[in-house]
């Protein structure tokens, strides 16, 4: 995200703004779930499904922001973003699959499935600096 802002292109700056617009609500809900008991009353009730959908919706928005960045950028940025996204998604899926099987076969402790999203972006941040060519 920082590199998109530093690039200084209109598409890159729109991407940063859209990312903040989607991630701030996501983080606010996640943090309030962890540090307060504001949502405890709805756990196990139908409203719990609404909360789950509400906290997941910004993720759809973030994927849209990434696709918009690719659509509005030149061919190099488009190819580079796609390559970084695919590698990060592949590594995150491999990690999640590994841990899922570890839970099944090795009695590994359970990890909530929603961690796949922050894991994906953590991996994206780690791999992106090393993927600098579109070839």
């Amino acid at each position, binding site marked *: 995200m920082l590199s998109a802002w530093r690039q200084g292109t209109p598409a890159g700056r729109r991407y940063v703004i859209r990312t903040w617009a989607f991630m701030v609500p996501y983080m606010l809900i996640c943090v309030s779930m962890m540090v307060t008991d504001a949502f405890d009353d709805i756990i196990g009730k139908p409203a719990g499904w609404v909360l789950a959908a509400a906290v997941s919706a910004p993720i759809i928005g973030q994927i849209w922001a990434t696709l918009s960045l690719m659509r509005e950028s030149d061919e190099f940025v488009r*190819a580079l973003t796609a390559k970084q996204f695919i590698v990060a998604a592949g590594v995150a899926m491999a990690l999640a699959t590994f841990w899922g099987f570890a839970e099944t076969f090795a009695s590994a402790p359970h990890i909530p499935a929603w961690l796949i999203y922050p894991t994906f972006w953590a991996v994206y941040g780690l791999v992106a600096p090393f993927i600098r060519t579109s070839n």
Partner: protein
Amino acid sequence: MKNRLKLLRVERDWTQEQLGQALGVSRQAVNALETEKHDPSLDLAYRIAVLFGRPVEDIFENPHA
């Protein structure tokens, strides 16, 4: 892909930013082309050729020749 893009740009005393604006791409894209980190699409290669008034193969080395 080996190319003479940087040479042609410097001959005209253009910055990467200026060349990018003329081509409708980012400075990063121009830098990636010059450092062979990106192979241009046919469309972009033709745009570059038109801008410099040269055939594509004068600018980009044909790897299959």
